[in-house]
């Protein structure tokens, strides 16, 4: 199975719990705001430590409270596209894309797929929301991830931009063939993109 996630975490007053097993393709974590969807992604990425449980992705155990396994985030090979693009402001787009790249020769193909070739020499602060989002997706893909985590990649974009990013994501899903875990609160998005939907 691509994702096997059984975790629980208390954050303040809220108890976040998820128990799901999902195969390849795009698994959508669906639910209203405040149910801890982003926290689940952070736990899979290794940025947030679950209180208990076990996380295994593509056959590799990333966290297991019972056996004390807790792979640090830099070794999890997660391609994480955050809700805010989090581009490094002091590096141009090209340097952002290559920050985690294992093989720079993959750059042209990724750039072409996302249509960001004309942005390579720009500074992040000069990008529009949709452009920054695409660069963030490219940066995650170029780090040669074993799986992708996407946190509301279509939020706060206008309609044409949404269509653009959605197309890019469909292409990633079908061409890169990476297991993807995506968070959304938009039923239409879940319907259109998801291989399966997990409701939180």
């Amino acid at each position: 199975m691509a994702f096997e996630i059984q975790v629980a975490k208390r954050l303040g007053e809220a108890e976040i719990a998820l128990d799901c097993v999902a195969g390849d393709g795009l698994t959508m974590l669906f639910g209203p705001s405040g149910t801890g969807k982003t926290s689940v992604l952070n736990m899979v990425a290794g940025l947030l430590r679950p209180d208990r449980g076990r996380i295994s992705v593509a056959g590799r155990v990333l966290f297991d409270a019972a056996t004390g396994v807790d792979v640090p985030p830099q070794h999890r090979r997660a391609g994480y596209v955050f809700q805010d693009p989090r581009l490094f402001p002091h590096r141009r787009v090209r340097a952002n894309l290559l920050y985690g790249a294992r093989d720079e020769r993959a750059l042209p193909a990724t750039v072409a797929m996302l249509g960001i070739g004309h942005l390579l020499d720009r500074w992040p602060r000069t990008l529009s929301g949709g452009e920054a989002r695409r660069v963030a997706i490219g940066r995650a893909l170029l780090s040669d991830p074993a799986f992708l985590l996407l946190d509301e990649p279509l939020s706060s974009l206008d309609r044409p931009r949404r269509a653009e990013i959605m197309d890019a994501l469909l292409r990633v899903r079908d061409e890169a063939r990476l297991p993807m875990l995506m968070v959304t609160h938009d039923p239409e998005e879940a319907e259109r993109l998801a291989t399966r939907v997990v409701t939180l």
Partner: protein
Amino acid sequence: MLSADEWTILALSLRVGAVAMAAALPPAFALAWLLARVRFPGKVLVDALVHLPLVVPPVVTGWLLLLAFAPAGPVGSLLQHWFGISVLFRWTGAAIAAAIMALPLMVRAMRLSIEAVDAGLENAARTLGAGPWRVFWTLTLPLSLPGVLAGAVLGFARSIGEFGATITFVSNVPGETQTLPLAIYSALQQPGAEATVWRLSGIAVAVSFAALLASEWLTRRVRRGLHGV
């Protein structure tokens, strides 16, 4: 123009300020990073200790330094034993006093600038495969650099103005430990030396002003380098 004595005082002040700043910079940055980014038991205590020179009367700091660096003191005896040197009544001692007094200010400025670095960017770098050192060198340090430089210049200016701890620790020796404030103090003790006080005070204001301008210029330059403005 400046007299030979005034040049000596100015040169000594700049040397003490520069050496104090250079000596305080690494520990100040390390402490700032520790306080900004790491959770550990006793953090409140470390924070308070760092800030102590800011609130303790400088005379007390100077006296404690004197005890520590005296030939029989814990640090002084080691320096004597290993290197055969003493910092008492020497400009190096003045630099040590200035560095200790400047440390809290430098840590404060640097800590703020490190805290201002978005932890989300650091987390993004980690998911991209960067270990702690790479995150530090490629993100934390360059993004906090303007604040670090501003803190360094602040430390330099503070060092040049140091009075209480210096005069208690290494006394007021012309040509060796008599920096600008100490020379102004000496001139104030002499009848009819108002002109000297005026001139030295003017130099002190000019140096401080130049340091602030340099800090502003550096900060802008670094920002431009960072964001391609």
